[in-house]
Structures are given as C-alpha cells and as structure tokens.
C-alpha cells in the first residue's frame, strides 16, 4: 500500500514538472531572435510586408505568447504535436517518426560498442593498476575523447573510403542497385555503411565509461571480502570476475539507465558528416529555421523519456532500498 502511494505521488509530481519544462522551453525558444518568416522571407525581393503579416497570422505568431502556448498545450492533450512551420507543413510526429529508427539503431549499436570495449578496458586497467597497459589505455581513451569527432570521421573516410576503398563514405545504404539486392546482401550493405558512423560516435564515449569502470573496480578490489576471497585461495580469475566485477558493475548499470533519453538524441555533427538522416539533423535544421512545433515535439519526447527514466530509477531504488521509500512517504 505504501509503495502504491509512493508511486502515485511520484507520478503526480511529474505532471507539473513536465508542464514547467515545456513552458520554459517555449518561452526561451521565442526569445531567440528571428521568426520562421525571417528565414523564409527576409531578403527575398518578392516578399511584401502584407504577405509577411499573412504568414505570421497563419502560423499564429501574431497572438500573445501565452495564447500560443495554450493552443500548443491543447493540441498536446489530444496527442497532436501540430504541423511543422517549414515549407512542407507536415505533421510534426511524421517528421520525427521517420528519423527515429535510424537514430535509435545507431545509438544502440554505439552504446553496445562502448560498453563492450570500455568495461573490459576499465577492469584490466584497474587490475593492472600502474602498468604500461593502464597508462597506454588511459592515454588512448583520452586522445579519443579530446579529438574532434568530425576530424576523426574525415580521416577515417579518407583512409577507408578513398585510399583503401573498403567502406562507403556516407549514407545508409548503396544508392544504386539496392532495390535488387537479396535480404542478406541488404544487411551486409547496411553493416558496411554503419561501421564508420558507429565507430566515430563511440570513440568519444569510451573515456568516461572506462574511467568510471576502473575507479569502481579499484574501490571494490580494496574491500575486505576480496581479501577474504584471495585468502581462502581462490584463483585470481575467479576473484576478479566472479566476486569483484559483479559488485563493480552495479553503479555502471545506473549509468546505463540514465542513458535511455540519449537513445533518441542525435548528434548533428556525425549525422551531417556521414549524411545520416537522423534526429540530430532535423533538430539542427529546425533551430536554424525557427521551426517551433518540431522543436517542441522533440522536446516533449526527450523530456518524457527523461522523466520516465528517473521514475524507473526511483522505483528501482525504492524496491531495493526501503529507506528511500520511507522518505518518499514523509514527503521527500
């Protein structure tokens, strides 16, 4: 019963938080100089002032900001994100929907790659603390972290795409003959196109996670029960992978949970470089064109995911740790 009450409270808190997020974003967005018309019409000799005003009225931009916000909120209640201000006037959800799969795919792959590389790297660095391997891997992940991704991307393209000719340079699949490929050929084609983007988007993420893993592992290795395990004569491998790693992984899993909203966030830099039609490019274009409905639409999705991610984390803690639940009941 207490838990259900805790859950209900948490859910109720989410609503004002969510409205607060959208309201602040809405206002801040309109504070930026320029309007959709600035982009479409300024400096166009064919554009008369009457037409500009007409466009403003069509977009509803002639009304006070709070009225605009209320209109938008009313649409949201009916799950209608409105139509884009760009020339195509397509429904916002359609525009976001067609970008989502490829963004999620790339983010999943690169997250998988980051975890698959960073965790063993961190563990080994911790176990061999102060060794040449530790120093080398530290230097390498930080070089990867510090190098601008667009630069790394161009170098890799030049090497694998132009000089060696092994991999395609940009896009998601071949332009010509793709339609005639068999299923497995299509999969292979996609895989070849995804190698570089996934690689580049992972390189920057290695540093953080591998460092985190290393320090967490070091922390665990200092614990008494590890000493005990060693003392009772267990093989070192068993000590590290059975006893130490399991405990060291717990905080890392929290990071995984917090990365959920990042799954749909795109990166404009590598999407532009690799010509990938993802969320990042859509958002960048929308910001530059002051396409408010698309920006708000994306914001809604990201903030809902973030709030849900936090809620899940809270629930997870509550289930694991009764003390937190108790605090929740006291109103904290």
């Amino acid at each position: 019963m207490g838990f259900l009450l805790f859950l209900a409270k948490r859910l109720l808190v989410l609503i004002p938080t969510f409205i607060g997020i959208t309201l602040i974003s809405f206002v801040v967005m309109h504070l930026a100089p320029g309007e959709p018309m600035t982009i479409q019409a300024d400096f166009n000799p064919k554009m008369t002032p009457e037409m500009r005003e007409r466009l403003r009225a069509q977009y509803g931009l002639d009304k006070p900001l709070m009225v605009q916000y209320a209109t938008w909120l009313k649409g949201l209640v009916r799950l209608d994100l409105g139509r884009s201000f760009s020339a195509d006037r397509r429904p916002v959800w359609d525009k976001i929907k067609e970008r989502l799969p490829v963004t999620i795919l790339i983010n999943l792959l690169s997250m998988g790659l980051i975890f698959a590389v960073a965790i063993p790297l961190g563990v080994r660095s911790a176990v061999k603390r102060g060794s040449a391997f530790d120093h080398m891997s530290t230097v390498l992940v930080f070089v990867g972290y510090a190098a601008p991704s667009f630069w790394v991307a161009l170098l890799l393209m030049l090497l694998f795409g132009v000089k060696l000719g092994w991999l395609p340079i940009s896009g998601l699949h071949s332009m010509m003959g793709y339609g005639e490929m068999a299923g497995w050929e299509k999969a292979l084609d996609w895989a070849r196109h995804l190698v570089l983007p996934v690689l580049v988007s992972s390189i920057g993420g290695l540093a953080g996670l591998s460092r985190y893993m290393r320090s967490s592992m070091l922390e665990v290795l200092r614990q008494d029960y590890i000493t005990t395990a060693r003392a009772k004569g267990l093989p070192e491998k068993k000590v590290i992978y059975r006893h130490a790693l399991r405990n060291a992984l717990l905080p890392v899993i929290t990071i995984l949970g917090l990365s959920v909203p990042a799954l749909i966030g795109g990166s404009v830099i590598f999407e532009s470089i690799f010509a990938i039609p993802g969320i990042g490019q859509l958002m960048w274009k929308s910001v530059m064109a002051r396409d408010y409905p698309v920006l708000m639409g994306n914001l809604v999705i990201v903030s809902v995911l973030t709030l849900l991610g936090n809620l899940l984390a809270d629930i997870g803690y509550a289930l694991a740790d009764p003390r937190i639940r108790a605090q929740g009941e006291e109103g904290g």
Partner: protein
Amino acid sequence: MRWMAAAAAFVVVLLLQAPGAAAAAGLDPVGPDYGDAIVVGSIGDASNLIPMLASDATSHEIAGYIYPGLVKYDKDLNLVGELAKGWEISEDGLTITFHLRKGVRWEDGEEFTSADVLYGFETITDPKTPTAYAGDFLEVKKAEAPDRYTFRVTYKEPFAPALSSWSNVVVLPSHLLKGKEITKSPLARHPVGIGPFRLKEWKSQERIVLEANPGYYDGRPYLDRYVMRIIPDPATMFLELKSGGLDWMGLSPIQYSRQTDTRFFKENFKKYKYLSFSYTYLGYNLRSPLFKDKRVRQAISYAIDKEEIIRGVLLGYGVAATGPYKPDAWYYNPHVRRYPYDPERARELLEEAGWVDRDGDGWLDKDGRRFSFTIITNQGNSLRANTAQIIQYRLKQVGIEVKIRPIEWTAFINDFIDKRRFEAVILGWTLGQDPDLFDIWHSSKTGEKQLNFIGYSNPEVDRLLVEGRHTFAREKRKRIYGRIQEILAEEQPYTFLYVPMALPVIHRRFRGIEPAPAGISYNLIRWWVPKAEQRYIMP
C-alpha cells in the same frame, strides 16, 4: 546564404570558359544513347515540391524538372515559349495573351489546359496561400482563360518583369488540387508533373530520385535517372566525389584549384567554370555621418584593391564588379567610373573631405574624432570574413581603422540590418535575369525589413527604376539601366567588390554538355552516355 537560395530559383548561371571540350563531345559520330543515371550532390534537402510553396533552391531545382513554366530562358538568356507556344503583348503593354501547346499531358493522362494556369494564378494570389512569390502576380488586374488553349492577363500598368514571372510557379494540375487546401496536398511530396522527369522516390534528408518521363512533350531525356544525394557536409561530399559516389558537384575555389590535379581526377572528371548571377559588396549605412560624403565612399573604393581580394579570397575565380550586374549580361554598362587601387587618390579625397591625421597617431581624424568604423557580416561565410580582413588591412594603410564583427544570420538580420544598426556591411546579392532593381535601390524601399537598408535615395535613379519597369523594348531598357549604373558608380553607395564564379565538376562519361550564357544545366535532358560507358544499368 539563405536569402540567396530564395532568389536562386530564378537565377541562371552564365558560362565564360571551357567551351572547346563540350563542343567536341557534340560531334560524336554514334549519336545519343539512352540510359544511365547522373548522381548529383546537394547540401540541403528539398522541402516542398509545389513550387509556389517552397523558397529553397533545392526544391526549385527538383520541381523545375517536374513542372515546366509557360516561358523559360533559353541558353542565350532570351525568353522563349515552353508550355506556351507563343504570346502577344498588346500595343499599350498592358495585356499578354499566351497560346498554350495542345496535347501536353500530365503524368496521369489528363490534358494540360489554360484552366491549370488560371488555377495556379488564383492560388498564388489567394491570401490563404503561404507563398513568397505573389508579389509579381498582384500587379495583375484580370486573368482569364477564353478557351482551353488561350490564357490572357491584363496588368494595372505596364510591367516589364511580368513576362518572365509566368514560370513554373503557376503551373499545377488543377484537376488534382481544385477545392482542396494546397498546404495539405499530397502533391507536396508526391508531385504529378508534366516535365522531362517525374519523381520516383524521395527519402527525407537522404536522396531524391527522378526518372525520365516517357510522355514528355519534347521527347524524353536520354538519361534514365537523375539522383540527388543529400550530403550536408561539403568535405564529405568531396570525398564521395573522389570515391566515385557522385558524378557532379560544385566546388569551392580551394578545392577547384588545389585538390583536383590528381590523375584520378583528370581521368574521371571535367572541370567547368562560369560567372554566377551574384555579386558581393561593401555597403555603407548612408544615414551615418561618416558616409554621408560621397568623397569618403569614393576614397574607400580607391583604397581597396579588388584584384587582391579576388586573388586572395576566390583564388582568381571571379571578376571585379563595377555595379549591380555581372559583366556578361546584355544590360551591363562597361563605361562607368572605375576605382582601380590607388591609395594616393584615396588620401587626397579624404583630405578634401576633411579627414587628416592631425595628431600624428597614424589614424585620420576630424573634429577630434578618429576615422573608425565596424564592418558587420554574417557568421559562417569565410569568403566574406576574409574579404573583410583584406579591406581592414588596406584601409589601415590610408589611416582608417576598421573593426570586423561576424554575427549569426537571424540576429544579423533582425537586430542589425532591420534596425539599421550598422555602419558598413559585407553581403552579396543574387540577381535574376531581368535587370529590374526597384526593390534594392528605390527610395520607397528604405522602410523596416525592406531591401534598401543602406538608405539610398536619388530622384533620378527613382525615376529611371520606374521607367525601366514600364518599358518592354530591350534597347530602351538597356539605356535606362546603363544610366543607373553610371550614377551608382559615381556615388558608390556600395563598393561593388566581385562577381564569383561557379565551379562545377562533372564526370567525363556525360556527353552533350554545351556551355552557353545560361550555364550548363539548361540542356540536362539532352545529356547522354555512350552504351559502353554507362555505369548504372536500370532494370
């Protein structure tokens, strides 16, 4: 650059050089083969393929292959009929009667008639239609379709740019659109056209594939397909070109001059260059006391070495501008006052205007105030930023202090240009084929958000601009616009800097590319590839 894109729809580029190679290709004894595809790189995606609703260059480029206009510019920049066989202009210059081609069919088999044009006209002038192109059509008093193949418009007063406005923005399939809301029409993404190509596939931000329209009235294109790949990053696009993923892209001066000398390039590509329909200028806010005096503006023009800017910024791929037109247009006037690099003359003029270095600190001063001003330009345009630096260096030598401030585009327009809060600005204009300059130089256009933002006002120019709009005869127009160029050259409200070149490279296998004053893409539908060299075989 965005505003350039808006105007670019009606812009054709003009070829200066490299005619020899293409002429040889035209002599191929075998004759044209059908087949193959051309893959073109574009930085931006199209937005809407209903021409009147789009304002970006990519949409107009693609829609241009799907919807032809009533008239078009031919390779020598003369207006000729396209969907209209011909037209008559009444004695008083008020009425234009178009005679439409018979038997031209939309993709779905319906015949193209005057009703389609009338529908297009009614839609573009409808206040509910969000279009940037209504301006020219609001000058029309009456439009009518007396029969299926005749379309007649009557203007309130003679309007010379009118004829060219009957392009593809008003040609739409009325049988699919009538009575429906145009902004929500599926035609925006699935056009039903009448032109040489039809849309095969459009994947947002990825690619647009056009295929030859077998029913095109003038004979289908030789190429089976036109594929536009959207690659937002120019460096990536260049790598794609090098790896064989693209057949055609426009290069920057540095790529063109330094990075295309490899054997691979020479074996696979041909380079072209031609003057674009645009120019870059240094504009002065004429409301500022600094620039009220004509002699000061002339002095700055003398102090700037335009050739040096062209060499340094464009690596030589451009020519010095003397006025608001490019040198190979028929209305260009070469006999205007010129400002060769002459710092001595600049110092004399400045002294006449009262600017002397009285305190010996190296900067000119007058009434105890140093001659110092700020040039603003839009952020992200390295050509303009570099131009500003060269100007800064040259003006320092005559004792004028220049500060440079690049500003993000929307803030640049909203907070500085629109509010007239600037001293000098480096920008560029893209111009159409018609010489009309009313919006940029007429004194009635100095209001907020209007394009005469420097505040230029000259009664004679005002009168000539109106006269030019009312005159159809080419020779008379040439005299009118020639005089305007003389006045502008004398008064230097802008220092006209340079006209840059367009620098495309195209794969060697394409034949039939015939450079002309209109550029190269005007006859894309007659480009072809010999069977043996065809690269993409369509099923």
